[in-house]
């Protein structure tokens, strides 16, 4: 039972391992050069999957600030900075949640389900606020004193990293295909053992 729970909690990691191993097997064992390259793509994609799943947070959305948060920031800059301390105040937090829920309803249709969640899990958000007060990162450097909850958004960093990894994957695949084409031009085949056979029998 525990095992199954563990499996369920981390099923994404299981999935990526399985996919990755399929890719790795193809890279190592397949004879056809194109199949190897396909394996390579599968392999790299599995790693991307892994990374992206690191960044996932329950009930968080894509790492782009809401329209109101952006505008709220301008407000905060122009107006008072005094509400920083007020975060400890629970009522204030509740207001914030209510405000947030409305934004969801109005501006971001995409996040309809998100808003739902927020409504019946209000205390979760409070916890989160308290927590990030303790870790006091939200306020240390912010001149604007933005009202941003880190748990509201997914981790942007892994997305950036994977954008890079995707680009690298594409580039490698391209070069791999080019080499395969050159080999095909020289040997007339893309089966590795046939190429090796040709090399062994001479005519260098």
């Amino acid at each position, binding site marked *: 039972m525990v095992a199954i729970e563990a499996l369920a909690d981390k099923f994404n990691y299981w999935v990526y391992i399985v996919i990755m191993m399929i890719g*790795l097997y193809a*890279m*190592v064992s397949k004879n056809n*050069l194109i199949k*190897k390259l396909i394996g*390579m793509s599968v*392999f*790299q994609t599995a*790693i991307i999957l*892994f*990374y992206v799943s*690191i960044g996932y947070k329950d009930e968080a959305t894509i790492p782009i600030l809401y329209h109101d948060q952006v505008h709220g920031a301008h407000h905060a800059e122009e107006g008072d900075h005094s509400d920083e301390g007020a975060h400890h105040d629970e009522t204030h937090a509740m207001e914030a949640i209510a405000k947030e829920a409305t934004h969801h309803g109005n501006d971001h249709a995409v996040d309809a389900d998100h808003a739902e969640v927020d409504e019946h899990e209000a205390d979760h958000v409070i916890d989160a606020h308290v927590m990030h007060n303790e870790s006091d990162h939200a306020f240390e450097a912010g001149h604007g004193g933005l009202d941003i909850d880190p748990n509201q958004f997914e981790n942007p*960093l*892994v997305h950036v*990293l994977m954008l*890079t*990894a995707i680009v*690298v994957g594409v*580039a*490698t695949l391209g*070069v*791999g295909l*080019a*080499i*395969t084409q*050159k*080999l095909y031009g*020289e*040997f007339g085949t893309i089966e*590795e053992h046939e*190429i*090796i056979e040709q*090399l062994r029998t001479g005519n*260098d």
Partner: protein
Amino acid sequence: MTEQAPILILLFPFLTAIFVALLGAKVPAASWPLTIASLGASICATLTTLIQVLENGTIRYYVGGWAPPFGIELRIDGLNALVAVTVATVAFLGAIYSKDRVESETENKGPQYYALYLLLAAGLLGIVITGDAFNLYVLLEIAALTSYALLAMGNKRATLAAFKYLIMGTIGASFYLLGVGYLYIKTGSLNMVDIQEQLIANGLQDSSTVQVAFIMITVGLWVKMAFFPLHAWLPNSYAFGPTTSSSIMAPLVTKVMIYVMVRMVLTVFGPVYAFEVLDWGNIVVWLAVIAILAGSIGALAQKDLRKMLTFLIIAEVGYMVGGVWLVDETGMTGAIYHIISDAFMTLCVFLFAGIVFAKTGARDIYAVDGLFKKMPITMIGFIVGAFSLIGIPPTAGFFSKWYLIQGGINSGNWEYVIALLISSLVNAVLFFRIIEIAYFGKKPAEGHIHHHGDDHTKISEAPITQLIPLLGTAAIILLIGIFNKDLVAVIQDFLEPFNLVAGIR
């Protein structure tokens, strides 16, 4: 401007690469001078950096002005300042050599070749100076992609080998990436120093994830550096690629990977973790011993000059991996010193192989037939490199062996000492076989011949662009041998805080 030197190290070759690629189509002749100029500038930048490091200690350069861990930093201490100088210098010398060979060996793709060459140099320099684990991956891939292409420009065999390299290299780099991901998942950071701090702060010594991260990163790098059982891609690709390509890749790519391994072990995981908590014991040293012996035996079996040399690289990689895992300060010093000296030694012999190939068009070791008469200056350069690989004082190779053997004895790894000695002897056999052929000719005459007066064979030396790098390399080998004390002082300053001397194991 000196505080900007770290970034200039790679900006010069990198921006020039783009420029060469663009300009090449119109003015191909400009490619070579631009390449040389930019690499020369890069050497100056590395030297400036080195001097600064020696004066003020570790340099931390925040790219984009963002303090780590939020931004990427270039972190340069004694270790990578030295390696950066080495990389820039080797690239510079290799580039000089390329001049007369590129057109004939790469089917008139000079500009592309130089652009890729510079990008490779920039990638390797970037790997060396960065302080960010993920940034290292990106640069690793730049270096890898350019390597694949530089090799695939060679003949048929090289193309296939390049493909193999591509597959293996991708596996290696992906393993590294995965390892970095594992570290990220447990520490939340990508900055090398910060990862180390987080590992300690969060008490992650026993985490199986971190252990696997270490294994993945190490194995990934082993693939990239062609550590023995994972070496299959190397011999053919370096042996059959264009001589110009292999004269930069053979000295640098494997060495830089070893640098990365040292960096990972010391800076990211920390010696206490890598050697004490994990304690793979002697396994790695034994693997290194096997690598050394396998490389040496493989080299003995070769008739092809460059292929023989590639097997020597495999043996040398064994030296360094073993040296790192001796867990001894002298051994580590030796391994790091060997990164530098081996880069130049390998460059020297590969340049020689290239010159011989250029002159005779033959690949096997009999191509050197009678070269003492025909190309005496070339042979002098070669002999210095060969002596260094054998380990004859006062060349650099002797001193790296000196430190490595000391490390082996200190830590009681006699098997490593013996392997090192055997490999020196094998190198002696290999190189004296070549020297013999060059001296006696392919089939020496029976009985005495008394040539009257001097010989009729005309001296026909290699062109100056090939001689300069060869002799330059030879001179450097001697210099870093004679001045090894100063070099080692820098290395030991770097190693001091890691407290390896306590004999962790």
